[in-house]
């Protein structure tokens, strides 16, 4: 995950994309047949449609050679923006211009026809992406080598495994010599070896001065690959700049939404949450400038525990997940050798995690109450969250102070 120093676009880099005041309105209709349309024609018809602004007044200039990430939650307009850029959707107002050769990395083999052989599909797909037959023939060996699917190339694509399918689709797209490559959520495909190959190819693209616009839900990938990240929320650009800052902003938005959802939509589930545990808090012992947890300091996780009736052999467990859902840490009272005395009523309890060394980013704490034979009496996923300070020296779920020196010569 080593990040090469961001190739700050040299001043000579020309603009490749210009968007001015781009807005896109979707009209959602409830009537879609000719009859219904005729029946509801005119003034009354307007009642049957509702407007939805997928993009509002977007200004965006992209210089050649940069890799731009588009992030935002589902429905924030990032895919629509990519489609306007790709010429698939016309903006309702504003202008979008681009130059140079464009290629889109399509979703899992769109444009592949299952009844054609791999070879035929290579030609078809390359043609779709703008190559002539002669150009495809010239690159065929390279494409086949990259996809490495061997003799299967002359088999109908419907007999391919999904991995082979994706490898071939990716191979074609990256061999079309694009100036501007649009990528929509497709880099997380194939096995690990192939993903590595894809990433290497993307980095080669970057070195060759190609421009990449990438829509991704994988925030780590965005931070890793992009020179610049645009955060969209409800069709508007709310942040444009350093990928790390954009990701932090985005996590903030997600957290606000999550809390709102728990408050608004938790109606049925909430009573169960409140039955055993509530008023959970995560408190850093020596918080940083934004109230975040600093490496090497302690974190207190406190909550109220309710018991309707005395329960023997009860176990409390906490787990800490990274924002990607990966388990970073967990512990239980049993592991600590603590026996909880049976009680009725409410007790406030605390786990103190000393000398925390989590990697940068947001973490979620979940709390469980387990009985003596291991049955989960109660789970509260993502009960609380905390942020870990970003020292900007490393990625990952652990914080380790890195040093570099030349040992010899």
């Amino acid at each position, binding site marked *: 995950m080593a990040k090469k120093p961001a190739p700050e676009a040299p001043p000579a880099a020309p603009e490749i994309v210009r968007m001015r005041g781009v807005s896109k309105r979707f009209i959602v209709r409830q009537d879609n047949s000719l009859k219904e349309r005729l029946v509801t024609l005119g003034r009354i018809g307007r009642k049957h449609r509702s407007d939805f602004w997928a993009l509002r007044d977007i200004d965006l200039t992209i210089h050649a050679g940069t890799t731009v990430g588009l992030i935002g939650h589902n429905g924030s307009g990032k895919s629509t923006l990519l489609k306007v850029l790709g010429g698939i959707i016309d903006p309702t107002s504003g*202008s979008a211009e681009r130059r140079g050769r464009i290629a889109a990395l399509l979703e899992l083999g769109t444009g592949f026809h299952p009844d*054609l052989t791999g070879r035929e599909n290579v030609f078809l797909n390359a043609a779709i992406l703008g190559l002539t037959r002669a150009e495809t023939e010239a690159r065929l060996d390279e494409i086949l080598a990259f996809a490495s699917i061997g003799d299967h190339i002359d088999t109908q694509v419907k007999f391919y495994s999904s991995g082979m399918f994706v490898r071939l689709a990716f191979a074609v797209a990256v061999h079309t010599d694009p100036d501007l490559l649009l990528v929509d959520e497709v880099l997380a495909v194939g096995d690990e070896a192939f993903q590595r190959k894809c990433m290497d190819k993307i980095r080669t693209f970057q070195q060759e001065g190609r421009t990449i616009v990438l829509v991704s839900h994988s925030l780590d990938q965005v931070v890793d690959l992009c020179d610049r990240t645009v955060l969209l929320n409800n069709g508007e650009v709310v942040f444009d700049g350093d990928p790390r800052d954009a990701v932090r902003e985005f996590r903030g938005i997600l957290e606000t939404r999550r809390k709102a959802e728990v408050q608004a939509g938790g109606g049925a589930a909430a009573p169960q949450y409140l039955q055993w545990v509530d008023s959970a808090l995560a408190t850093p012992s020596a918080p940083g400038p934004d109230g975040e947890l600093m490496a090497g300091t302690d974190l207190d996780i406190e909550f109220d525990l309710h018991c309707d009736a005395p329960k023997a052999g009860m176990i409390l467990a906490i787990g800490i997940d990274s924002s990607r859902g990966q388990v970073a840490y967990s512990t239980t009272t049993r592991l600590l050798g603590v026996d909880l005395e049976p009680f009725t009523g409410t007790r406030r309890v605390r786990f103190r995690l000393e000398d925390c060394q989590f990697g940068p980013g947001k973490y979620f704490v979940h709390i469980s109450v387990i009985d003596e034979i291991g049955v989960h009496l109660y789970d509260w996923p993502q009960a609380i969250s905390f942020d870990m300070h970003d020292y900007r020296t490393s990625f990952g779920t652990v914080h380790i102070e890195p040093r570099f020196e030349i040992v010899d010569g």
Partner: protein
Amino acid sequence: MTAAHDRFRVLERQPFISTASDSTIRGVFRTSLEIVRRRDLLSLLVRRDLKSRYKDSALGVVWTLIRPLTQLVVYYVVLGKFLGAERGLPEFAIYIFSGLIAYGLFSEIVSSGTSSILNNAGLVKKVYLPRAIFPLASVGSALFNFAMQLVILVGATLLLGTFPLHADLWYALPGLALLLIYGYALGLLLAALNVYFRDIGYLVEVVLLLMLWASPIVYGWGFVRDAVGPSLLLEIYTDNPVTLAVLAFHKAFWIAGAESAYPEFLLMRIGVALVAGLIFIVFSQFVFARLQGNFAQEL
């Protein structure tokens, strides 16, 4: 970084183009040029359509022939023999078949053209292509099927000893042009409308069923003339571009009926219809260009 700098230098000299579809005269012209430039894609799309249609079937392409041949037998026996439609129409089988393949071409272009954008929804939604290429690909695959049927027709004339080696054979060309021009113009227009109103697809099937009877394919043009007399109605009937194309095909391939009734000024009528058809294509392209901007969200 030299590769990058070279790339930048080339890029710098390129003009910015708008990503939005352009329904001005220049935009439509540019799209047409783009399709010409991407003819490799067009031929691959045609081949894809043909291959996928007859995949895994034992008889494959033969099925393209079975349908019109079955129609031929039914019309020949029922209409020709039972109902006596073959009166005054020598070599009735040749007569029917030359009309049938003409109509078959038109009907296939229109019906597969109409559904072409919907059938390629996956591509239209994901990647930019000149979308008019899909109805055009329908023309290509219909032409292939037509060519197969034409071989059968010519083979049959050989067997019957009426091989159409005569001065009027060239009528086939303007006839074919009429079918292609009107078929494509309609296919293009309906393909765009079908995205917004899905009923169009069903409507087209019904209308195509009717139109078979609105041209002198299984009966003679003379029957109509005798029934309605020289009137505006006859003119309207005759100037239907499909009727003109069918008549042209009769002229070309139905040598036994050289003496039978044809409308006056057939060539002039065809010429006028061709010019009108070209205007129709331009109109369809403008409508298509206007409507295509929202395809991706309607699919």
